[in-house]
């Protein structure tokens, strides 16, 4: 099972401040543990939203909104992708992360083909695949 862990932004991350040496050390050690356990597939930090942009969709209209964005708590400042045997294992790993101060870290399971289960009948699956093929052909 594959999971994504979403780390929210903070006023500091939005200001582009680097974390303290202690926090960096603790995070490096934690990342090493994840790698040594064969759990971490990917993980990156994101630049502040001042370097990002949003695109708003309304009918045929596309509006580009430059960063920064407000509501630092709702912004993503980094992510991991983990491979775990169960949701419980992912939670157990997340509990060991060196965060503090009331921050809430979100864990989400990534969809894999089997997750669609019964709802995705062979016919639907085929139709889905045809759509993908068409999309690929149009590229």
């Amino acid at each position, binding site marked *: 099972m594959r999971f994504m862990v979403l780390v929210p932004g903070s006023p500091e991350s939005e200001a582009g401040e680097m974390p303290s040496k202690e926090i960096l050390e603790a995070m490096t050690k934690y990342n090493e543990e994840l790698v040594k356990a064969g759990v971490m597939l990917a993980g990156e930090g994101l630049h502040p939203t001042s370097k990002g942009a949003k695109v708003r969709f309304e009918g045929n209209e596309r509006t580009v909104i430059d960063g920064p964005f407000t509501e630092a708590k709702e912004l993503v400042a980094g992510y991991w992708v983990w491979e775990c045997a*169960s949701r419980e294992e992912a939670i157990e790993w997340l509990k060991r992360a060196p965060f503090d101060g009331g921050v809430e870290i979100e864990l989400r399971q990534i969809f894999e083909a089997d997750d669609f289960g019964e709802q995705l009948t062979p016919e639907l699956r085929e139709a889905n695949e045809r759509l993908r093929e068409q999309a690929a052909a149009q590229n």
Partner: protein
Amino acid sequence: MAASATHRAIDAVWRIESARLIAGLTRIVRDVSVAEDLGQDALVAALERWPESGIPDNPSAWLMAAAKRRGIDALRRRVTLERKQELIARELEILQQLDQPDLVAQVDDVQDDVLRLVFMTCHPVLSREARVALTLRLLGGLSTPEIARAFLVSEATIAQRIVRAKRTLAEARVPFEVPGRDELADRLSAVLEVIYLVFNEGYAATAGEHWIRPALCEDALRLGRILSALMPCEPEVQGLLALMELQASRLRARVGPHGEPVLLADQDRARWDQLLVQRGLAGLQRAEELSDQLGPYTLQAAIAACHARGRSLEETDWPRIVALYDGLAALTGSPVVELNRAVAVGMAFGPEAGLELIDSLADEPALRGYHLLPSVRGDLLVRLGRLADAREELMHAADLCNNDRERELLLSRAVACGT
């Protein structure tokens, strides 16, 4: 938390901690069998206590302390009950070692212990089957029923295999250590073989009703990733991991809507897992940088990388694949590699050239009864338009095949050749 939820959480902790716990205990008691029993005792203690107390802040320290406490209790009881002097001497020794203050403080030491345990469970004194079962059990954290399900044999068979393996290790006095330079290459290749066996059983099941079993691939990948972190400078460790990541990237495109196999030529490449492709290509690069001469796993990873980079079967660099198979054939002398090379030659230089190579392999004893020989021959004959001959070869391949799904595919391809 409901009891079942706590049990699932304990399972998760066990999966994370068990290899390190058993490795650490093996270093202390110098006997992997005793170490595993103590580890299991600690798990039982956790199952008794944690549903009420909750999972402790430092589960690994808790489990280690519980294992030692149970070990000391059990030994004290036995030492007073039993009269056999020799046994008592050995057990007193273990008792003393367990009684020492916590030796498992340094994370790096624990990592070294895990590596020692890897070399122990993959020791050549054990049969291949025993190595696989013991490695999955002690390093993969899999239970006996899980291993039994994975290999389609009974729990009793696996349980017995593990008990015997541990006994063999004890009788042969296999040391708990990373082998020295002179034997490292051979011993490491035994470790890699075990991991790749597990992967392959998931990637192309040799028996049963399913064509692939992704959970086994994931177990192998996890072991490969752990080993890669333990031995970052060993090119073949990196090569094997790259190979598995690249092959696994195609897993979800490898089965059709009804569970039928989908071969490389027919796979929807948009479904390949790009995260695994990228990890595989990066791993291959690491392996190549570390190698003086590419080893067999790195060569196979390089071949898999040619497929990963190819946008279609036609746009694949087949001449390079042939060259890589040349290198692999020279290194391994394996007839199965020659067979694969013939497929690549057929793609690079036309079916006639491929068929010529296949026919030179026809009398190879190692390929006798191997369904892929007539299967490949059938493919090449189809491309040459010799449909009646192709049909015969594909029917023959289906006869030899033990996997239900693959056999159905071979039969349908035979039928497609007409009569």
